[in-house]
């Protein structure tokens, strides 16, 4: 039985184009606006949706995503609400894969077994947990695979050929290549480096490769989608939301639209990349 993620990447292969993976933080800036954005993402052109589970101390993220987490938490976002957001999405869309991304503590606190059961029931397809390297696979990765969820691992420029098999083992769905050494929303990698890195990963795995960190424009997304199976954009979308937040801390009427407009242009870039 294939998963929604596997089916989506198979479709992209048939369509002969790279995909667009869009990251937003659950509940940013509010539950309602966040739901509006997420429900509209497939129409705007997102092929896969990554939903950030907010955490107070996101140590691999830059200021943009940390601020988005704190906005969401301030407005009452929590794990049950994040799972509910997925449930609401899944009631309307059966095909777009949802990947939950975040840090381990909110999951550990919720309870691993209960989390896997509730995530599955809500319609989550995969997990990316930044602070769970292969050395900690028994915590969540193995139980998640057993529960039928994809566990998507991050590979980085520091993951050398010797370590790569360890990282790829137990990875499923796709591999997320972090194209820079650093945190989200900061530097960008060069095309030469990305091409070389994707080639290296492809020698080790048949899984699709999504490339992220530092991709903020349609041009960059297109360049990445040319050589990888998908481009991931996060901070740039989150920044669009942040820009619409007023001095009173409340989201303006254009918050959702501003984010979706960027996603549309990114999607157009990705779609034009390989013609």
């Amino acid at each position, binding site marked *: 039985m294939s998963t929604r993620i596997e089916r989506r990447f198979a479709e992209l292969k048939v369509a002969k184009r790279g995909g667009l993976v869009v990251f937003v933080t659950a509940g940013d800036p509010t539950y309602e606006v966040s739901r509006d954005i997420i429900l509209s993402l497939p129409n705007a052109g997102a092929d896969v949706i990554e939903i950030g589970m*907010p*955490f*107070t*101390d*996101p*140590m*691999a993220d*830059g*200021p943009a995503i*940390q601020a988005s987490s704190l906005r969401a*938490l301030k407005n009452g976002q*929590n*794990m049950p609400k994040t799972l509910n957001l997925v449930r609401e999405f899944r009631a309307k869309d059966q095909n777009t894969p949802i990947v939950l991304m975040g*840090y*381990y*503590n*909110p*999951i*550990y*606190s*919720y309870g691993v077994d209960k989390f896997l059961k509730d995530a599955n029931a809500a319609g989550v397809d995969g997990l990316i947990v*930044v*602070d*769970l*390297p*292969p*050395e*900690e696979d028994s915590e969540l990765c193995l139980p998640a695979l057993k529960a039928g969820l994809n566990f998507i*691992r*991050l*590979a*980085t*420029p*520091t*993951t*050398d050929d010797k*370590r790569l098999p360890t*990282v790829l083992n137990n990875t499923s769905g796709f591999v997320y290549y*972090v194209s*820079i*050494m*650093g*945190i989200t929303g*900061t*530097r960008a990698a060069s095309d030469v480096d990305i091409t070389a890195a994707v080639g290296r990963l492809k020698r080790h795995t048949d899984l699709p490769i999504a490339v992220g960190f530092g991709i903020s424009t349609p041009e960059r997304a297109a360049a990445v989608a040319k050589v990888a199976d998908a481009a991931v954009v996060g901070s740039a979308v989150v920044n669009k939301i942040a820009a619409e937040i007023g001095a009173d801390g409340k989201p303006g009427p254009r918050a959702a639209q501003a984010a979706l407009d960027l996603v549309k242009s990114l999607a157009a870039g990705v779609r034009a990349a390989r013609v």
Partner: protein
Amino acid sequence: MSIAAATPPNSYRTGPDEHGRFGIFGGRFVAETLMPLILEVEAAYNAAKIDPKFAQEMDYYRTHYIGRPSPLYFAERLSRELGGAKIYMKRDELNHTGSHKINNCMGQILLAKRMGKTRIIAETGAGQHGVATATVCALFNLPCTVYMGATDIARQQPNVFRMKLLGAEVIPVHSGTATLKDAMNEALRDWVANVENTFYIIGTAAGPHPYPSMVRDFQSIIGVEAKAQMLEAEGRLPDTLVACIGGGSNAIGLFHPFLDDRDVEIIGVEAGGDGVETGRHAASLTGGRPGVLHGNRTYLLQDDDGQIIDAHSISAGLDYPGIGPEHSWLHEMKRVKYVSATDLEALDAFQMLAKVEGIIPALEPAHALAYVQKLAPTRPKDNIIIMNLCGRGDKDIFAVAERLGTKL
């Protein structure tokens, strides 16, 4: 847990296991970018540990630069005033730079040099670890960047200036509560971006494996010396050890050599802030539950959703929502008893020691002292307590003056 506590292990000193765990605590919960380097640090440390040259180097700098051994001082007047047990103080506040932090920094910088790293980063709360790191960086001519919460910068001005004099760059951290946990987040972010040339000198016995055990090993000189000094002074082991706990490095340094001496009672004192019952405190073991932060599983202050709660303490060095993983394990094994002292109790103890013994302690060990003040009078006169006086209070006089309403 209760079963484990009922059947004590043969030794409390064998941890961590090969996964960096003390029971369920510890581990390596870090982003993949850091993982290869963490493994490299572990391999380098394992090699250094059995290299006599490394031990010789450590000995040399301990003796000639740090000024070890530190005295084990019998606080006769204090003991008399409290009217109970004999109180000894392990005087690590007399170390170069004024606290125990240098014991660890010296070990880690010698390791960083062995690994060929050319840049050092650190986080700091009270600034003592930052000063100690800046000091060893000056000594070994390595560039040093220290992350410090903006709140802490405001309340630890003398140490900020000291770090700058020593040539370090001090970067204020404004995110979160702008205290120690946020400084640690920011240092980890720097490390992720600069893994190739940078060594992160973590200041307490926490973080991903091998840091908790490595820092413990470097700090264990405190307990090793104290044991020998006590045997020399009294011909026997102490009845009780008391130390304050931020992340737990001075405490584990004193405790570890005594863990298998089952008759020695061991007490860790967390920062009770306004009182544990108020929710405004930094007592992770008394008021928290197990979770995962900064690379390890340990007791954390957190809400029902697993979000980290801000710690509160008058002492910037104890103002951290977590604790080293070995303490979490010793707590669950019931080998060490963990209690707390409030801001007010620590302030009282701070002033008392200055008047009674002519020693101005740092606010951190003032917490340990506050508990000793309660404990000693309940003990017979032939009882012996060792308290870790792990830092001096010069850095705190401005903050204390402000709390006491005195303008300097």
